[in-house]
């Protein structure tokens, strides 16, 4: 038997973490329970975070939005603040899993699983997301890009949980683009994805741009060079092809059962061409 704890608040959680030898925290279980079944992981005990109110919700803070780690994807999709201020994240969330999976899975889980294919990650990277890690006595913050250290690896310490994610809203941009390539149209692990934030002037020049790719490297890939190829330019085929060529150099995809590295590399660039749709009329 594997003990499973269900603390009702943070205080109860800290007591569990102190008392038990290394219980694995989880929330929705949509990744963890699959890994338990396959034997990929075998923790001695589990602690479920879903009932801890301090870890759930969305609210405005100075300079940004606070998102509790234990907030489900469905709740985020329904949240007016997320819809209004983080359309890029909302777009990505709508491609994640399926309705029942979104009712269970959480943003904290997606971040801590740190899969190279995690759907919330490219938008959170593009939005310069920041995580807060807490233990009973400590609290530290770091950029998401630093928190995820490799495929499935994070800087989380054994006594810590991910408490929340903070993002600055993307209101400074007027293009919030997300596209995910999966083998089918729902419940599909991402083969390659692109999150793009742009500010395009009324006359069509790109004034600001953030790009982030998912599933084409050990972690989310950002490419300053690709961004540079668009800055100050119009969203023309030529400019996007140049950016695409640079993107293909920046990504480091692998072959796996879903797709080849060559395909992933090719489409990483191609996905940028979709931005032609955002040229002012």
């Amino acid at each position, binding site marked *: 038997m594997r003990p499973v704890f269900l603390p009702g608040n943070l205080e109860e959680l800290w007591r569990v973490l102190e008392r038990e030898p290394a219980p694995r925290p989880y929330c929705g279980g949509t990744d963890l329970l699959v890994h338990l079944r396959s034997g990929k992981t075998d923790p001695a005990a589990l602690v479920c975070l879903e009932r801890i109110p301090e870890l759930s919700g969305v609210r405005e803070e100075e300079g940004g939005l606070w998102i509790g780690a234990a907030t489900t994807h469905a709740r985020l999709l329904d949240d007016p603040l997320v819809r209004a201020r983080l359309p890029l994240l909302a777009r990505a969330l709508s491609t994640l899993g399926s309705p029942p999976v979104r009712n269970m899975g959480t943003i904290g889980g997606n971040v801590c699983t740190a899969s190279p294919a995690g759907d919330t990650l490219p938008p959170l990277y593009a939005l310069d997301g920041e995580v807060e890690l807490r233990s009973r006595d400590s609290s530290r913050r770091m950029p998401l890009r630093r928190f995820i250290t490799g495929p499935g690896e994070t800087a989380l310490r054994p006594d810590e949980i991910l408490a929340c994610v903070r993002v600055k809203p993307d209101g400074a941009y007027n293009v919030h683009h997300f596209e995910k390539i999966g083998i089918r149209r*729902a419940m599909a*692990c991402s083969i390659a994805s692109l999150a793009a934030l742009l500010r395009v002037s009324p006359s069509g020049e790109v004034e600001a741009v953030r790009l982030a790719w998912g599933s084409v490297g050990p972690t989310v890939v950002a490419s300053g060079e690709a961004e540079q190829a668009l800055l100050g330019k119009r969203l023309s085929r030529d400019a996007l092809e140049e950016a695409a060529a640079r993107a293909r150099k920046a990504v480091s995809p692998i072959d796996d059962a879903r797709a080849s590295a060559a395909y992933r590399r090719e*489409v990483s660039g191609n996905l940028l061409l979709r931005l032609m749709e955002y040229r002012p009329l």
Partner: protein
Amino acid sequence: MKSSVPEIGRSLRRADGPSKVTGREKYAADHYGEGLLWAGVRRAGIPHGRILSVDTAEAADLPGVVAVLTGGDVPGTNRQGIVHKDQPVLCREKVRHCGDAVALVLAGDRETLAKALSLVRVRMEPLPGVFGIDDALAPGAPLVHEEWSGGNVLLRATIRNGEAEQALEACPVVVEGTFEVPPQAHAFLETENGVAWQEEDGTVVLVVSTQAPFRDKWEVSHALGLPWDRIRVVGPVLGGGFGGKDGATVQCLLALAALHAGGRRVKMWWDREESFLAGYKRHGARLHYRLGAREDGTLHALRCRLFYDTGAYAHLGGEVMALGMEHAGGPYRIPHTLIEGWCVYTNHPVAGAMRGFGVAQVSFAAERMMDLLAEKLGMDPLELRKKNALRQGDRNCAGVTLTASTGILECLERIGTHPLWVDREKWKSQAGPFKKRGVGLAAVWNAMGYGRGLPDSALAKIELTPEGRLRLYSGVSDMGQGNATAFVQIAGHLLSQEDETIELIQPDTARTLPSGSSAAGRTTYTYGNALIPACEELRRRIVGRAALMLLVDTLDDLELLPGRVRHPASGREVPLSVLAATMTEHERVCISQFLMPVVREVPGTGKEFRIGFPHLFFAHAAHLARIEVDELTGTIEVKDWLAATEAGRVLNPQGFEQQVQGAVAQGIGYGTLEEVKLREGRILTPDFAAYILPGSLDVPEIISLVEEVEEPTGPYGMKGVGEVGANGPLPAIANALADGCGISMTRAPLTAEGVLEALRRKRTPGAGETS
């Protein structure tokens, strides 16, 4: 739709609908029991090897383990199989695929079972593996079955009509191609499972998810040396079958477990991963085609070589290939055909029956060839097909004269008048940025029934219960196709009783009568044809008894109505319950047998086929796929689907449409998403995360048109329609790709990656290899 007396030709809702929609229907998987034991299998884990030792001591010592059994514990022949008894229940000498069974464990709970399975120590000497058709046929190849006289060739066969090779030389237009299709998994939602126990008198009872409960008795009897009449198989409704539960899956293992369970119930339920590992698959195949025609598009000659990979055991491999060969030319007149087939053993998962049984494979090739031909001739692909379409009285590519209903031309003509076809050019021109639109056709067909060599028969049994209601004893499993509902429709119609009052007994070898397998699109035709005379006799008996009770001297003056018999002239009635109470069981039960007609003039070819060739009845369909391809990602989106289907007359329009829609969805999976990926005999797609089924966003709205052509031998003129729709999507989508993007893809599934690569090669011909 409230309860009513069914009418033939009017939609009737599913008889088992209410119980399924409320979760009350018990599938085999829903059977548990007091003191339940769980049984599980330790499997080979390597694709080919000699077993050196199986050490069960540690597993057997684990508390909670009741028994650990190996090949030596199997009492009978230790061989199962439908045609060829070549598959051990528990392997003793060697293993031939990763899913081969080596040991069987019985334990008190699933956790103990899993632990015990991991404690069974199997020592094996790996043998060189046979990992595909070329491996199997290479000179000096390792032998999958050393004792098999054909080496790695299970069956080599030829269908020859006329002089195809000479005739091809004379053809002004010839097209050729080589096509490859992968294994496909049935992926029924209810995996292979059952519960078994041994009664005090020694009878072994199995409640199992099976398409062939009566044949299961024979398989278990032969494999375990149990007397045939000491085995009872109960077959509840299945949560899907599609051919994958035709032939013993858990049955012999479960019966063996029951023999060691001390009377306790034993349950075996393969989880999804085990179903992928050990369950049956559609045959992967490689198909080489040369098709020749005259200048005006008249087909003249076909030469093809077909290779089917049957995996580690025969299952129905020879029969699958035979059916594929019989359909290889498509539903067209081709005077000269030379169709050669090799069905080979490999160390791959076992291939067996799957909806479209050998025909799904050749339909890809045959229909791509037709479009290639149309292109070369500068002919419209629909016109080319219509020109060559088989009609009743023609000889088909197997050399059989079609004496039964043949409606492929009607289906094609129907497509031709539909707006989806008529406005296709305008639709294509409206593709958005980075999108290309294409439209593709497929003309397909699929035989019904077992063909020659095996009697396709059913014994229908219907009873007027002592309470005066109808009780129908179905001899064939309902795996979701709705044959039970068709039987209610027929019985209710003939006996004028409301559908909801009719009790259905699903197959149970102790109560219902042998009626063959739920397969080959045969169940409503064959069982229905047996049911009609049984019902007619029962009607005579009921009305006859009423005549006695009402002192009426002719049956014509009496009306059979829901719950009663009425004498209109006098207004007198007698309730069925009253009637039934005066009748003995012999009087209240009617049984009738039907045997499906077979081809009389068997062509002098295909002599290698012992069973399954040729067939007399076919269903036909023409499919139209409208797709949109994304040039940036290669992704195919299927936007519209049109299917025109001919399967005789339609008993239940809703039921007919259900079959067409479901078949198209499976075909779309086969065409674009699904592939059992294998590398050196190991499955790389072991679960639903890696093996991708179409979901609700991947299947378009399907327009299903019906072309009715009376089949006089069928119950109310019908034929089976379950399979034909599955054959259309792969070729229709491939043809749409060629039409919209100018790419000719020869390997299924038609993945985004494959499409993007093909588009790239088209832009830069002769460019270097990628990946």
